[in-house]
């Protein structure tokens, strides 16, 4: 552990009460006091903060694990784990209903399986508002799964807002991909 920081105290000493001199316009000789030696007229103390140390946090990545036992569910339906949303909307799109129902049946049959619903938004607008929007999307999917009979205890919601885009481009196509909820089995 290394202390990088320091407290730097800086004293500012008013140069001289008398050195605020006039000097002649064309002043070849000048009438100004030449010495810069300090006279302790007024003394200001300024403190900068020492930015001591940096820390690193490295959480383990949480990967969605493969479902080894599909329990009769169509594998292709369960492979759909990313659900898109329209701009500023948290409504489930019709095209995703079949896959969501598949996940619901799977979760009901496998009551030890838990799933995390991760809400995401596109990058436009403010980050904190997007964090809230991402949660609303994930909750929307959670409500749908709940209506289909999945116990609340098997689901948890997390929002990342705009922090984890899948596409980095700044265009409509990328935004559409990034507005999503991801199902992460654990």
């Amino acid at each position, binding site marked *: *552990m*290394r202390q*990088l*920081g320091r*407290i*730097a105290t*800086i*004293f*500012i*000493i*008013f*140069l001289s009460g008398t050195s*605020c*001199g*006039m*000097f*002649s*316009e*064309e*002043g070849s000789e*000048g009438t*100004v*006091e*030449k010495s810069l030696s*300090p006279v302790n007229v007024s003394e200001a103390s*300024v*403190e*900068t*903060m*020492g*930015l*001591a*140390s*940096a*820390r*690193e*946090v*490295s*959480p*383990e*990545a*949480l990967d969605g694990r493969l479902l080894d036992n599909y329990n009769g569910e169509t594998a292709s339906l369960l492979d759909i784990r990313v659900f898109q949303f329209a701009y500023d909307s948290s409504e489930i799109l019709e095209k995703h209903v079949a896959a969501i129902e598949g996940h619901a049946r799977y979760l009901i049959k496998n009551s030890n399986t838990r799933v995390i619903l991760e809400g995401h938004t596109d*990058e*436009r*607008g*403010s*980050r*904190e*508002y997007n*964090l*809230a*929007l991402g*949660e*609303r999307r994930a909750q929307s999917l959670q409500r749908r799964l709940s209506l289909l009979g999945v116990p609340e205890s098997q689901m948890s919601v*997390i929002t*990342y*807002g705009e*922090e*984890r885009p899948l596409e980095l481009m*700044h265009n409509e196509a990328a935004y559409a991909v990034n507005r999503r909820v991801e199902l992460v089995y654990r």
Partner: protein
Amino acid sequence: MVSVCGLFSFETIAEDLVIKIEKGVSTALPIAIVPFENNTGESLIDVAAIVRNNLERSGLFRSLPVYDMPALPTALEDVRTKNWTSLGIENLVIGKLEKKNSGTVDIHFRLIDVYSGKQLLGYRIPVQSDDLRFGSHKVSDFIYEKLLDKPGAYTSLLAYITVDRDSDTEKIYRLQVSDSDGHNARTILQSTEPILSPAWSPDGKRLAYVSFEGRNSAVYLQDLATGRRQRIIHGKGINSSPTFSRDGKKLAVTLSRDGNPEIYLYDLKVKSLMRVTRHGAIDTEPAWAPDGRGLVFTSDRGDGPQIYYFNLADNSIKRITYNMGRYNTRARYSPDGRKLVLVNGIQGIYRIVLLDLRTKIYEAVTIGELDESPSFSPNGAMIIYATVTEDGSQLAAVSADGFTKQKLVAQRGEVREPVWGPLIR
């Protein structure tokens, strides 16, 4: 499990931001800052150049390039005022660097009114030799304040988040603090999970921020001097958007533990939470009014996200943004409390807008398409924000009158969510 590795230095990682001024004003005050004489026998940074850049960046000064200077005086007796008045220069800064004892350098500087022939300021500033940048910012503050009769903000600091996408496998998020000119960047937190919403304590000694290191958002508080940090608010749902009250005793935060995002006040001493808003819509992005009597926040309870004011005295709520389109978010007060700076989205274009709270007149002060996170400088003269360019997200600043724009560009990676720290007095 999540591991929090110990203290560790990042001095080689933090990269300075490069500032590009894009537009200036012609009414700026003409000033000449002569290169300082270096009597230390050591190779030191160019103090005069830092001061020159600082003053230019405000848009309120126009400094004479060194190659146009008729002479390079460093002592009062060498100044020939006529040389400068004939060039239209009103103020002249001269100075020198002297070595006192090992490790310490004295910056001597004088500000001269060349028309009256008077010295307006003269100071000796002793600094550690590796702290000359701070000394240069201090000189800039003195000159700014003397000539404009308003406090300078050059010695204040910026905090912001960088994201490094260099590696394919994972992103590195860093919380950094730099000088107000983007130089001297230091990383104070690094994580592979998102970090967002840094907020300065009013005394400039601590930063609150949100980190996802625990697999969910949580609010942390970190002491800058020691690097000590603690997780202060966590729980189910969103734990985010911290901002300090002006007395530093409370944090306003957004929590969704009760089902949807609401504004809460967290008492830092008692460690208690008080719920402020109660509504099924999204309520987030609280910011304290400078008088401490209320908060503005973003809510989509009405017509899209809009800015509302919560009066802490009577718990009343009133909408602030009307007839400004369907997207108005993340408002912050000007230091005098008269204006709000916020993000306004119209037809897919997101810009920084300045709203006068009395006249209700608003104007866009930026020209980007994806501008966000505006923050006032503590003297109210500048607004810093994040903008998306072909280089990714970068910081930009604009003078509060909208006339002078500048970009602070990182060498690599993205820079986002700048927040300007308080004045250090």
